[in-house]
Structures are given as C-alpha cells and as structure tokens.
C-alpha cells in the first residue's frame, strides 16, 4: 500500500487538475431565446451565393460554406437519404473545423461590420452535425459510432454554452444527454 501512495497522489492530482480545467457553464449570463438564435435563422443569414471548398479563402467563407452544407444535409436527413446526408454533414464539419482553429467562440451577435451582426455558432452547428451523424449511425446499427459522435457533440455544446447561453444549446444538451443515457442502459 505504501508503494502505491505516490501513484494514488499523482492520479488524484491529475483528476483534480482535469476538473479545474473544465469551467462550469456560467449561470449569470443572459439566456438567448430559441426565437433569436436557432438553426433556421442561421440558414437564412447564409443563403445565396454558394461557397465551394475550393473557393473558401477567408474565415467568413468557411462559416458560410459550413452552414450551406448543413442546410443541404438537413434536407437529405429529413428525406431519409442517410448516406447523402452523412457526406454533407461531414463536409459541413470540415468547413467548421478550419474556422474553429482561428475563432472558436460562439456568439449570438458577431459583428461583421458597422451595424451588421450575425449569428455565429460554429461549435453548436458542428455539435448538431455530430448529433445527426450519430442518429444515422444508430439507424445503421453502429451503436459505438453513434455514442462516439454524441459524446463529441456534447463536449462542443458545453463549449458553446460557456461562451453563449442559448435555449438552442441547452435543448441540444438535453437531447444528447438523454441519447447517451439510453445507450448506457
């Protein structure tokens, strides 16, 4: 037992450090309603001239491209064209991943230029993509893969909620928690 003490100390220290590194979701931030920040509003802000991966040059292009691919993915998902939807969700996430390397905070009012703000939710949108990818995996019987995607989604939702408390994010968090809980039974 004496020999184990240093290891126990190190493990305890690492666990404590890990907990310290994950700040809780601040409760005092104002809650942004679903009416203001929602996926449909994001789609509307980014419709129009399409951004192809080869044409994405600026960070704004990567956000716009990611949103446009997601809008297409949602349509396929609703029509149960799962392989097509999966490909589009992945393509959408590729756009967002490039963006998140540079700007990784969500914002309900991201200022583009004087007098123009946009809904900027790369983390939440990526999380939603992972949620849907997980659901598709579940229908294909790939439970392990579904769980993996939902876990990733949950960590992104938490990240989003730390910077912007949205009803949209909280609803997504609840959905993911219940999906993960159902898999643990």
């Amino acid at each position: 037992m004496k020999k184990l003490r240093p290891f126990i100390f190190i493990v305890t220290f690492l666990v404590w450090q890990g907990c310290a590194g994950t700040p809780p979701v601040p409760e005092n931030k104002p809650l942004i309603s679903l009416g203001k920040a929602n996926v449909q509003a994001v789609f509307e802000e980014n419709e129009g001239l399409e951004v192809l991966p080869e044409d994405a040059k600026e960070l704004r292009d990567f956000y716009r491209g990611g949103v446009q691919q997601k809008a297409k993915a949602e349509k396929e998902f609703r029509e149960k064209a799962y392989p097509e939807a999966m490909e589009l969700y992945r393509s959408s996430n590729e756009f967002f991943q490039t963006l998140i390397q540079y700007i990784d905070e969500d914002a309900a009012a991201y200022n583009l230029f004087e007098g123009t703000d946009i809904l900027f939710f790369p983390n939440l949108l990526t999380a939603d993509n992972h949620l849907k990818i997980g659901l598709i995996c579940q229908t294909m019987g790939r439970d392990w893969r579904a769980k993996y995607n939902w876990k990733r989604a949950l960590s992104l939702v938490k990240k989003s909620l730390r910077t912007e408390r949205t009803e949209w994010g909280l609803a997504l968090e609840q959905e993911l928690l219940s999906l993960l809980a159902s898999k643990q039974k």
Partner: protein
Amino acid sequence: MREKIGQVRQLLIALVGAAIIWGIQGAGLVQAQSSAEQSLFHTYAKPMVAPDFSLGNLDGKIVNLKDYRGKVILLNFWATWCPNCRQEAHSFNTLQAQFHSQALEICRINTKESRETILKYLEKNPISTPVLLDKTGKVGRLFGLWAHPTSYLVDRRGMVRYRVVGQADWVGWEALRVIHLLLGEK
C-alpha cells in the same frame, strides 16, 4: 591522376551550377505563386449564377439585376463610413467613362445607409456611377458580404466570375485585364 582530379572538379562545378540554376528557378516559381496568391481578384472554382435582386436607386426607381443581362456588371458594396470605399470611388468614375459604351455596367450598392446620408456624401464627393440602396443588407447577405468594400464581377451570362475583397485600383492593369477579358466574351 591529375586528369581525374580535373574531371571531379568539373563535375563538382557542373553540380554547383545546376544547383544554383535550380534554386533561382525555384525562387522564381515561389515568387510567381505568391504574387498569384496575393491577387485581389479571386476567381471561382465553378462560376455560379449571381443571386437575383431588386433594389431602389437614389431616384426611387427599382433596378433588377436581370435588367443588365448581356452586360458585364461590376457590383461594388460600399458605405460612406468606409475609408477604403471612399478612396476607390474615383477609379469607378474613370472606369465608367472608359467602358460604359462597351457594355460595362457599374452598380455601387450602399449597405444600410439612408438616402439622406448618401446624398450628403455625394454632394462633396460626386460620382457618376448609379447607386442602389440595400437598406436591410439582404442583398449583401445573398452575396456573402462580410467586409467593405467588396466587389463582384458578373459576366454577360449572369455568372459571378471574380470577387475583390478590399480596396482595388480599378484602372490598374489587373482590373483592366479582367474587364477586357469579360467584355471580350460573348
């Protein structure tokens, strides 16, 4: 023995010479690539149809993008508060005078400012190109506008071919090359 040393020396000189030439060529290539990357005129991998829109001009007349079909259109998004927009404005006057008769249409789309603000600005800075009012910013959103000034060049078939983010010299060689290219197409 001496002959052999001479041969080795020659070989070494040849190798060093080749390395120098290769290095110079490589540097030239890198320079060419970086100057291409620095170009303000971004092309599109696959030209796409310009989103259609209708906007009012300063006289209240509604202008539709389709009205210009068959012409080369330069859409320039600007605002009076934007210093770079103010700076490039003069080159549009020159461009308009030079190419209007050759079917180049310049539309300067103002983002979210009132007619009064624009008229006040134009009193001091007169421009000959038409100004359209994007009061809600909807047209800017359709094009994915995120900075001022931003310009789009639309070809005769209504396809967006180039995008320029930031201030450009519209009477510079690069702009003229692109405009000549588009005007030369059917």
